């Protein structure tokens, strides 16, 4: 059985409207083929208020060991970025996803984030009071279905640093 090790960290986030961000993340792989043997596949980072600049640093560790019986359903990282404001309220900032690289090695990845757009009044309220609309079903972040019903606004970028190790891939005829 091929094995995949994912070691790395969520470096941080940049390009969001304001700082003091935190990030909820999870790793999704097709459960019919992929089995997590060890490690955490979901989590939440601390809230980071950068002293200067706009790069919020999370340095959140990732260490996962997968076993698979198919290439299909390759693991995906999905992210939700939240903003913790002055009053301690959590405000939603954006969704994003990326695939695990299909090559062993060290990778620096960037994840494009977006949030659903509300009506004019909702956007106005969002600007002054916070609280953007969220998806009812967060699976939409990493599936292409029903996307055409959405209107979204571009948000910032999440930065990832991953090292990927494959085992027994060549033996099973997989070329990467």
């Amino acid at each position, binding site marked *: 059985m091929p094995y995949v090790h994912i070691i790395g960290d969520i470096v941080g986030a940049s390009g969001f*409207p304001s700082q003091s961000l935190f990030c909820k993340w999870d790793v999704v792989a097709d459960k019919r083929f992929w*089995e997590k043997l060890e490690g955490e596949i979901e989590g939440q980072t601390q809230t980071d208020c950068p002293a200067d600049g706009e790069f919020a640093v999370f340095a959140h560790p990732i260490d996962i060991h997968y076993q698979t019986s*198919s290439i299909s359903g390759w693991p995906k990282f999905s992210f939700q970025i939240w903003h913790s404001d002055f009053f301690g309220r959590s405000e939603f900032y954006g969704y994003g996803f990326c695939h*695990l690289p299909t*090559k062993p090695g060290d990778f620096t990845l960037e994840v494009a984030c977006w949030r659903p757009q509300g009506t004019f009044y909702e956007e106005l309220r969002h600007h002054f009071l916070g609280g953007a609309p969220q998806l*009812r079903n967060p699976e939409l972040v990493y599936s292409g279905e*029903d996307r055409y*019903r959405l209107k979204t606004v571009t948000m910032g970028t999440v930065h990832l640093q991953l090292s990927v*190790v494959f085992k027994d891939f060549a033996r099973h*005829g997989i070329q990467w």
Partner: protein
Amino acid sequence: MVRNVLHRIRADHAPTIHYRTQDQLANLRLKITVKRIYISDEQNWDDNGRLYTFVDSDNKPPTLEMERRLTNSRETPLRNDLASRYLGVPRPRERDPSHEESLPQAGVIEPHEEMMIIFSASSKRTEKDEKKHSEDDDEVWNEFILCYLRAFEDQTLQMRPGLSEEIHSASSIKRRPYSFTSVEGDQYEYTIENVSETDFIAPPAPGADEAQGRAKEKSSKTNEPFLKTKSKKEGTHMVKFLKPTSTMKQLYSFGQIYSAYGFEGDQLYVEYWVDTGIHWRNIGQQPQAGVTQICSPSSREHPLYATCHFGMPLTVEVEAETTIDSPPKIYFQINSLDYWNRRRIEGYCWTDVPLQPANVSFYEKMRCFFIGANSELQDIRYLSGQQQTGIMEQQRGSGMDNLLNRFGFQTETTGRLVVKLNVVTLNQHSNTSAMMPPPSARLCTMGEMAEDESLNTTKKERNNKKMTALQRAHMRLEAKRTMNGSRSMDR
């Protein structure tokens, strides 16, 4: 006795699932069990739930699917323009066999046949209270689509929600139910079950040579994983690695339409179409065409560099014979909507799916065209010169063999689209000699070497191995020394 109640899934939040079918649609049998689990008003309760279906040949379609909301925003207009164009409401379609085949275009593929299974909770329904909102922002329905099926010509079946998840326990199979609430406050749950007599829904990876896989598994059983895993007990459902047959190769590309920048319009969306050509066969369950959301750039940026983040997954899973070397192609069409929701085409571009495994980010390589105001390509394959054969034959007649003639096609360079692809290929033979691992893959080969020193050998044996290796190294060193010595003697 403890009865473990399965957690219900809100049916209006449930995702769309794709299945690959291997039989005629007429042989599909579904069993839907609806159960009322809570009655809000017991005095005035009467049993008047009805089930009915809607198929695309009926002429007055319900608008229920359009009203389903994806976000928790209460005010977002339920009908956006893209949705009404693509999903729309099922239209009756002509099925005239003489009707000429439609030319491929990017965007959502029209289903071949579709069907809604609808539950009507009350007969006292009026047009006014079709849908109300209760206090806790849950949607309530008077008529509810239990299941929305769409069948496509490439033998995929799209279901929303999908078949109920089966949970196997020691004695029986339980199915995780879906739930919804009616206008009167009654709660319902239901399960969807595939009871087709034939193997209607194909196994996950078709073309997999099972016997081969099993034999392989047997031979590799002696190799213990280098971590003590719990997979032996729990992962019994994953017994073999699925492989293509010996003459076939499989190409998997996991990518995303990442972002777009440099376009004039404000609200962009991208339509794509994967052209597998005649050689490649789609084995995935994903549709071969699709469309992203409508994305606005963040207002803080300079309009010239305004970027739209799509983050739209784009998965290609195809299979072909090992000799084939013409890659599948992906075509993109970038559109924009203006303030009055008028559509404009911002550009066209295309890319090959690399046949060699790669991690690529195509933005330098892509060419974007913009063709005049609101003119649209009829056949998107024109971009890569792979038009329909009819035109090619005409050209051949006029002595223009294999010549891509784009004269009279005026274009303008527009922005850039960033697409990221991760490509993996799979074939029967693990021909490691033909495929040298790239420098970045050193860690992987080290892992395999470590595994060859299997764990069941004792420490002594391993020490012996080390000793012999050391001796061999010594001998080689000696040989070299003597050779060098003789050379220096010659000098």
